[in-house]
């Protein structure tokens, strides 16, 4: 039993933006795996829900001729895991998606809901941060595109203005082509658990053993997912070695704002960041075509 006052079902994006413009109290519901839990816990009361689930234009994943990949926000985690475009082009995102929830949750939960919910632990977010994903937001008044890094404002807070719907998650060809990536979800239980730390690393290699680019996205290392800019800047142009990788791990900690919670202490989280960034980077190097570093 949920405290649902109204349940609207929009068939098209136009209908959804019209309804949102007319009724600012509406809460968008996609898979509902966050919204319904919040209602269960009484964080949302007497909800007026607007289901966008049936809007065709927000579903599915496609690759444009120029290589740009457009992920519809209603794509479920199961679909991300199995999608040929993702598997062939951004397998690290499929890895991250598979680490999320259990099968029943993945069958229902959407990637758009994962982002819009604003949790620092969102399993798709750290990878999308590393990929410099951009988000298209549409309202009755028009549309805008924002980098995902700017979309996250604080814990559970995203830059979604009244009446706006996330309509596209966009990954540019320059942000995935030639990169290898790896995602590590560290949690207390192997499955069905929220991450204690999520680490997404993608990297590109030139001249066999030089970092052309390294990008590190972390979840649960601060109030929002974040990038480790200092470590990334250091890595660029460096020869790949155990020492370089160790230094990247150390520098990654500098970008974090870890805190103590019941899941883990600040010190433990920082230790995890240093260690898991190195492990994820080592795996990413191999996937980018580099040699294995023990």
């Amino acid at each position, binding site marked *: *039993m*949920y*405290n*649902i*006052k*109204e*349940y609207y*079902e929009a068939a098209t994006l136009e209908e959804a933006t019209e309804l949102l413009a007319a009724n600012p109290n509406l809460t968008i*519901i996609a898979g*509902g*795996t966050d919204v*319904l*839990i919040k209602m*269960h816990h009484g964080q949302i009361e007497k909800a007026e*829900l607007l*289901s966008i*689930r049936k809007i065709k234009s927000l579903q599915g994943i496609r690759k444009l001729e120029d290589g740009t990949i457009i992920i519809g926000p209603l794509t479920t985690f*199961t679909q991300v895991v199995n999608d040929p475009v993702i598997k062939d082009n951004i397998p690290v995102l499929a890895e991250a998606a598979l680490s999320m*929830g*259990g*099968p*029943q*949750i993945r*069958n*229902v939960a959407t990637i758009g809901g994962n982002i819009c919910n604003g949790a620092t632990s969102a399993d798709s977010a750290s990878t999308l941060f590393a990929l410099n994903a951009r988000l298209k937001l549409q309202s009755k008044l028009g549309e805008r595109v924002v980098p995902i890094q700017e979309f996250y404002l604080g814990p559970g807070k995203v830059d979604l203005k009244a009446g706006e719907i996330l309509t596209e998650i966009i990954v540019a060809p320059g942000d995935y082509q030639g990169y290898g990536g790896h995602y590590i979800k560290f949690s207390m239980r*192997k*499955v*069905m658990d929220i991450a204690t730390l999520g680490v997404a690393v993608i990297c590109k290699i030139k001249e066999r053993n030089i970092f052309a680019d390294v990008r590190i996205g972390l979840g649960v290392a601060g109030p929002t997912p974040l990038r480790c800019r200092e470590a990334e800047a250091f890595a660029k142009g460096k020869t790949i070695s155990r020492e370089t990788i160790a230094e990247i791990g150390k520098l990654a900690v500098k970008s974090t704002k870890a805190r103590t919670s019941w899941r883990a202490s600040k010190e433990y989280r920082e230790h995890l960041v240093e260690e898991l960034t190195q492990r994820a980077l080592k795996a990413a190097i191999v996937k980018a075509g580099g040699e294995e570093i023990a």
Partner: protein
Amino acid sequence: MKPVPRIKLKVNGQEYQVEVPADITLLELLREYLSLTGTKEGCGKGECGACTVLMDGQAVNSCLVPAAKAEGSEVLTIEGLASPDGRLHPLQEAFISEGAVQCGFCTPGMIMSAKALLDQNPHPTREEIKVALSGNLCRCTGYAKIITAVEKAAAMIAGEGRG
């Protein structure tokens, strides 16, 4: 609270039209409006899998599906697995013969998750079975027998040529 103007859905092959309040879940619709009490409520918030049913062929937690969302869908519950003549589904037989049931509370959900797996992947490895059941908790059996039961059911289905 406004009544949803009648939800039409198919459950276990049978068409239903039910008038329900706007705020109930598919789980409540099944148990309280259709008296299909095989589907269990454990946690009520997506964590345990006791309420697992197949919705349009996919395993979902029915406690996280607002009834209104089930409009037009096809739902399969544990009651729909046996043949009309009462013959049990191989998964049900294997759970019994392997001793994969103790208190039985998790069993309907386990079997429905396993059914979703075998429909898509008739010859799963133990590892694939573990992943498919990772959203279902059991307090009693320790899982080994459950996984073995699913393996056995897969072999039975392959032998019999039935799903």
